[in-house]
């Protein structure tokens, strides 16, 4: 079985966002593998360990993303593809087109992705890719079972758990709780340096700038109004609670 895992490198979730000239600043920022994609990588490696599978990780993003792919290789993936040609960058539509061109170069039985990235958070790319490839998808999985050609996904649907069946090839996306991603071992890190990592360009993929051109555009980026600290109540506890409930009822009008 051949598994493709979609990976994005993102800001660590503890990073604050700084803007300069309307652009998010990246200097000094700690980058990580998008946490949802870590679940995807871990799941692919577990399938590989349980049977016979080859795991390819792919990322569309700037060259710094190589670090994320190397980490995935160190976790146990076999091969990496990095689409870091800036001509390949656009919006979610473009990314799906690029990933589809990469996926079509091989025969993947299973594609696993995070259900969204913690930076843009649009949650579109993986599902768009499934649609582009004409294969079914099951999103936000907290459990995945692959038995031969049959896939059973346990899907988190706003708290409800849906048990969904499909047949390979299929694309699935990971929700939190799918597994507990491993840290790369020292030996894994050593091996990762020798595993193949291929850079691909627009020309390599046989695409034109026109066919992957973005369909949406960000016209402005801004920070929210900083929230100011409010009132710390004082007095004995029951007095504080009574004051709070009264304020929520008659001043804020959010209860009662």
């Amino acid at each position, binding site marked *: 079985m051949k598994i493709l895992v979609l990976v994005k490198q993102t800001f660590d979730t503890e990073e604050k966002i700084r803007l300069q000239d309307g652009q998010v600043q990246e200097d000094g920022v700690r980058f990580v593998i998008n946490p949802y994609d870590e679940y995807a990588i871990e799941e692919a490696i577990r399938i590989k360990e349980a049977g016979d599978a080859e795991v390819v990780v792919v990322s569309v993003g700037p060259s710094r993303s190589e670090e994320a792919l190397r980490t995935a290789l160190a976790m146990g993936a076999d091969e990496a593809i990095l689409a870091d040609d800036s001509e390949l960058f656009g919006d979610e539509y473009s990314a799906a087109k690029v990933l589809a061109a990469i996926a079509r170069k091989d025969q993947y039985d299973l594609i696993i992705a995070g259900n969204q990235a913690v930076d843009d958070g649009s949650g579109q790319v993986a*599902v768009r890719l499934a649609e582009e490839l004409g294969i079914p998808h099951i999103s936000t999985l907290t459990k995945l079972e692959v038995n031969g050609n049959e896939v059973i996904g346990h899907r988190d649907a*706003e*708290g409800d758990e849906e048990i969904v069946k499909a047949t390979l090839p299929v694309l699935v996306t990971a929700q939190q709780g799918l597994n507990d991603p491993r840290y790369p071992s020292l030996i894994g890190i050593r091996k990762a340096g020798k595993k193949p990592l291929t850079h691909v360009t627009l020309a390599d993929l046989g695409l034109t700038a026109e066919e992957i051109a973005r369909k949406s555009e960000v016209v402005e980026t801004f920070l929210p109004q900083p929230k100011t600290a409010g009132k710390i109540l004082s007095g004995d506890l029951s007095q504080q609670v009574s004051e709070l409930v009264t304020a929520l009822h008659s001043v804020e009008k959010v209860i009662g």
Partner: protein
Amino acid sequence: MSRKALVVADVRHGKLRNVTLEMLGAATKAAEGGEVAVALLGHQVSSLAEGLGKAGADRVYVVDAPELEKYTPGAYRKALMEIYRVFSPELILLAHSAIGKDLAPVISQRLGVGQVSDAIAVELTNGQLQFTRPIYAGKAFTKVVVKSNPVVATIRPNNLAPLAEDAGKAGTVEALSVSFEQQDLATLVQEIIQKASTGVDLTEAKIIVSGGRGVKSEEGFAPLRELAEVLGAAVGASRGACDAGYCDYSMQIGQTGKVVTPDLYIACGISGAIQHLAGMSSSKVIVAINKDPEAPIFQVADYGIVGDLFEVVPLMTAEVKKLLA
């Protein structure tokens, strides 16, 4: 310039969710006098159609079929594409909910168009639709325009004004029949397990009572659930509480997890890590209860009580009961 707008009704457990009316409000504004239709997909949902007509839709397209009883992307795609073919809208709005989040990208890629996810505001700027949406879970925001036709967007519940009651309206209801083929039914829902909760959905809740590491155990959520029950609130959690195994990940609020914007957010025993604050600091009123007066959560709280949540929360429950009695 007027445009035709289609709102995809968000139905959960046979009920219409509020976000549908919020989308109708946005669609009516965005349509600039153009026709506004609602797509109602499901099985035995026709009874909801009339209400939608009264709620401000000029037209309600209903696809009622057993294949649509449980959501699957293939069958819903087929039904929605049929409505698209008949109505040819220039704007399609879906909820940023379990269904909308999953269905919107399917439709967008099929149509080869751009999509805005999780929009919290829609405005018309020089005749062009501009959507505001969070990035980094709300640590920053962007304004986005879609250059393709149609424009597709998912709308975050609780953020847009619903249409004012307009009793004068009575939109027409039109049933469409769709035949589903094997390729539309590539995924099959075998079972749905409804998890125990207060029954109020986190993303649409007006009030959320949320617990962090301070709840100390799975049982520690009990007083929070009691408070939530009297308030009609949903119960959420921080990553700390989920990672510690006190609760299910589906309850997690934050940059990893759900982003919420209720009217009232009550944070109990939550210190306020940056990634948690990103997921809740747009709430209208924030109450923090924490033993540690230095906890960062107090910096975003409108009201803070420094104290043990196991003392404060039951007192609050009693006080709210008194108020509502």
